[in-house]
């Protein structure tokens, strides 16, 4: 009995050591919210990603059953001109974080298959460059919201 439990534990330990932990295992998502716009206009989604791992990871995009298309974008300002560019991957440093926030990195959500209203929760599946995924619930906020509206914002 005793020896079989021990060997089971040992096998488990060996297995853990052998399998490379995925990016998603080390990433925690917080302050996840969507700025809902009227009609079928594309919406911006924002989230803070904390990487507790010893290795840098990178967000490559997201998908959703609610939106037909989700793209990782970056808004930038040069002079007084604003523009948006597509981003292939957003690095999240080891023991560091990446912030998707208004006027910077964001997920552009397009073509909702059902109206999303403020107060709704929408699940987005974040994907990382190693192929791992992290299902995250985003709170839908009104168009004129400034942030996730939670009581424990980072700053």
């Amino acid at each position, binding site marked *: 009995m005793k020896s079989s439990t021990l060997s089971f534990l040992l096998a488990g330990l060996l297995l853990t050591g052998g399998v490379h932990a995925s990016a998603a295992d080390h990433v925690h998502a917080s302050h996840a919210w969507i700025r809902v716009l009227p009609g079928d206009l594309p919406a*911006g989604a924002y989230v803070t990603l904390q990487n507790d791992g010893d290795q840098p990871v990178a967000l490559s995009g997201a998908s959703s059953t609610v939106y037909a298309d989700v793209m990782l974008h970056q808004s930038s300002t040069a002079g007084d001109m604003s523009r948006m560019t597509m981003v292939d991957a957003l690095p999240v440093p080891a023991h560091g974080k990446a912030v998707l926030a208004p006027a910077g990195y964001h997920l552009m959500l397009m073509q909702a298959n059902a109206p999303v209203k403020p107060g709704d929760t929408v699940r987005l599946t974040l994907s990382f460059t190693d192929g791992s995924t992290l299902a995250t619930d985003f709170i839908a906020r009104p168009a004129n919201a*400034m942030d996730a509206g939670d009581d424990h914002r980072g700053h």
Partner: protein
Amino acid sequence: MKLCRAFLPALLLVVGLLLAGCQHDEPLPFRLTNISGHMPDLDFKLTDDHGKAVTGADYRGKVVLLYFGYTHCPDVCPLTLAQLHVVMQRLGPLADGARILFVSVDPARDTPAVMHAYVNAFDSRAVGLTGDARATEALSKRYRSAFTREPGSADGSYEVSHSSAIYVFDRDGKARLLSTPSASRDDLVHDLHLLLDTGATP
């Protein structure tokens, strides 16, 4: 001594000019970039979000915040309008003397109906303005506010890069201030107080 003799007339001239300036018109102590006298008055012929033809003259008597954008802009445009909403909230009842004019640089997709739903999602004192490409371009050129359309993708969608500046006009339609989304909201509230507190047109 020689220096003083040369300097004194210049100093007197400066003091004289300052006094003349004060007598003429006390400059308001703005915190944002003061563009008084450097930009043309508010003037346009566009369609509002009720489908009504409007001109710059229709907004005389209101302090106007003019911003160019488009509704398919998911990040910076809504952020700017949300910030302006916060500023209007902070002005309290005074905000009734101000209007946010959101001019679409994407008239192909931004109909008055789309604009109506859009601006009202931000603030009841926001007005959505559209026009044909020529009218929109004329207005944006007037305020040196450039925009370009990025090449479209296969599904017909496209992005528009645009100026993020906010132009503020006084109740007489005179251009007074230039703000940007990165400017502090406190400064915008402060300066709008100066323009709104001066009351009706003199």
